[in-house]
């Protein structure tokens, strides 16, 4: 019986199997940020032990950082403390630390791939649920809690029962203005936020094969939003080309050795999955969410479903719409919005800024909209400048902020005010996620751009057609 891609990577990292218990899984790369690590480092201190493999550990500051005036001292005392703690802990344990102002600084899931830390066939963890992003390279990557961060720092291992396997196949050609974000929001809307809990997902079919690496990252990033621990895509020539030559990627003889392993990373024809789902690319429209979890999404031209048509608890569903101040049966098109957020580990890469710019070029930001455009890293910021995108943004009345997680989780000052509506390219529309009382509509960079220039929910295809006309 053949093995799945997931089996191959998982099984090759098992140090020990415990009967009726978890596997001891070896972790190749550990990414660390300021919010979920200080208590773990404190644990090491209390036990009197050091980080076992600092060379497999990388630290950046992203969750709790300002996105303006990063050259100035951080004003918020608690945030400044947390950043200082990470800097000191990294120094004490010889971990590379890319803090504010460092050229490699950025969102942890953006800088991993950028710097060649993320490679196929690796096990990658971070104290952040969107670690699933790195599965785009055919890595097993997933988020962990702080106790587990302490485990990996101290022993480079984690104890996890092997999850069940699921394959999601999508074949065909994506329609106009349908982006990787829409593909992911579509899948989540079909599975609900718990439909893949307990599973590790492989995405297969020509939609994913034809997708760019950045697109694959967006899809894998959102795996956690349907409950999956992670998602992965088999590495191919595009993957290897992306990785080769990056700073921390294997080189010379190590590259050849790695390639020998990487070329085995695909699901065997006779392998089987615990669950398999198939969708057609033609079904997928530009998506938008209307509720308070990422599963509450639909094609942008659809009406908000009636409670009676929704599976599960009507009470929870109605509570959600009440929070949003939307009604069952409402159309989303034309709903006024107040904020637009372009950024996050989901959609804060250069392709996302290119997509956003493609719509706003030659148009103006709507007066009623406050827009926060936040690159995922300094490298993304540089590319925005080099490619002339900054000029397009500025001509249309937008400003670019400095890299970080920003309004995705609103730990810093980038908070959407209570009651306001934000079209966001980030990953969660939970109550208060973007600020207490804030209301989030998740969408692609194209939908966000269309909202930014019209001041309301707008189908990006209309604007693209005008451009073509």
């Amino acid at each position, binding site marked *: 019986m053949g093995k799945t891609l997931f089996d191959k990577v998982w099984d090759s990292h098992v*140090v*020990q199997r415990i009967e*009726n*218990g*978890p596997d*001891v899984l*070896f972790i*190749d790369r550990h990414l660390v940020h300021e*919010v*979920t690590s*200080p*208590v773990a480092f*404190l*644990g090491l201190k209390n*036990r009197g032990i050091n980080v*076992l493999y600092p060379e497999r550990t990388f630290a950046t500051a992203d*969750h*709790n950082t300002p996105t303006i005036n990063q050259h100035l001292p951080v004003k*918020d005392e608690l*945030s400044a403390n947390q950043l200082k*703690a990470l800097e000191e802990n990294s120094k004490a344990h010889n971990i590379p630390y890319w803090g504010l102002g460092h050229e490699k600084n950025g969102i942890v899931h953006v800088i991993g791939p950028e710097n060649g830390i993320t490679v196929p066939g690796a096990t990658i963890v971070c*104290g*952040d*649920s969107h670690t699933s992003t790195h599965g785009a390279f055919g890595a097993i990557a997933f*988020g*962990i*809690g*702080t*106790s*587990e961060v*302490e*485990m990996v720092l*101290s*022993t*480079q*291992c*984690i*104890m996890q029962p092997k999850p069940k396997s699921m394959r999601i196949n999508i074949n065909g050609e994506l329609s106009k203005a349908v982006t990787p974000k829409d593909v992911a929001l579509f899948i989540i809307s079909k599975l609900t936020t*718990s439909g893949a*809990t*307990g599973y590790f997902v492989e995405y297969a079919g020509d939609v994913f094969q034809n997708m760019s690496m950045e697109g694959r990252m967006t899809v894998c990033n959102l795996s956690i939003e349907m*409950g999956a621990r992670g998602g992965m895509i088999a590495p191919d020539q595009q993957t290897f080309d992306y990785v080769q030559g990056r700073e921390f990627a294997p080189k010379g003889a190590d590259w050849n050795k*790695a390639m*020998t*392993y990487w070329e085995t990373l695909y699901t065997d024809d006779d392998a089987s999955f615990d669950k398999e789902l198939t969708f057609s690319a033609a079904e997928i429209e530009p998506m938008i969410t209307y509720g308070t*979890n990422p599963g509450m999404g639909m094609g942008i031209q659809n009406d908000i479903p009636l409670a009676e048509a929704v599976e*599960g*608890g009507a*009470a*929870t569903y109605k509570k959600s719409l009440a929070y949003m101040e939307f009604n069952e049966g409402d159309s989303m098109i034309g709903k006024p919005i107040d904020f637009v957020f372009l950024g996050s580990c989901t959609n804060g890469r250069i392709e996302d800024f290119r997509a956003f710019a493609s719509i706003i070029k030659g148009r103006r930001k709507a007066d009623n909209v406050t827009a926060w455009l936040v690159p995922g890293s300094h490298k993304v910021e540089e590319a925005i400048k080099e490619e002339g995108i900054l000029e397009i943004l500025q001509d249309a009345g937008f400003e670019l902020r400095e890299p970080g997680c920003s309004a995705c*989780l*609103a*730990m810093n000052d980038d908070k959407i005010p209570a009651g306001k509506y934000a079209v966001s390219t980030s990953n*969660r529309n*939970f*109550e*208060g*996620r973007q600020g*207490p*009382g804030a209301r989030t509509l998740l969408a692609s960079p194209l939908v966000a751009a269309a909202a930014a220039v019209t001041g309301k929910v707008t189908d990006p295809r209309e604007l693209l057609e005008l451009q073509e006309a």
Partner: protein
Amino acid sequence: MAYDKFDILTSSAVPLPIENVDTDQIIPARFLKATERKGFGDNLFRDWRYNPDNTPKEQFVLNNPIYSGKILVGGKNFGSGSSREHAAWAVYDYGFRCVVSSFFADIFRNNCLNIGVLPVQVSPEFLDKIFKAIEADPNTQLEVNLPKQTITLVESGEQENFAINDYKKGNLSNGFDDIDYLLNIKSNIEKFAQNTPL
């Protein structure tokens, strides 16, 4: 971090019959700025529990004095979203030692197990029975028996078994954590590391 051993817990319970309770609700991100594991219970369900001016929202269950106990009972898909262990810390720090639901998100479940909070998954029917029993009598006693892996509505005697793997059960029963285990096999790990291709 060591924690209290878990054996048999008999307590009244606090009902939260809402589905998809995510970890941003359990503890909002703006309360994640600490560098020590202290005081997270104060901000458990912060925005459901308090108004923007910090006055308590009286209708929220944690502000209703008729409900109390060491067991939190939540709706389906409890703990989804962010991996923040702070959510489990907040549940523990508030005084809960057990969370009951018909379905848990993976990372939250693991985080609970790692800090000595027992996640008990029951059938949707049994969850419904628990909610109804508490609605009828807020002082309804639940017995959670880890050695026998049972949860019982004490008065009616209605009972269900729950699953937990032997390894984690042993850890919770003895107050051990995974790092103790991993440090014991460190030489195996180091040997393994020498032969990894990456």
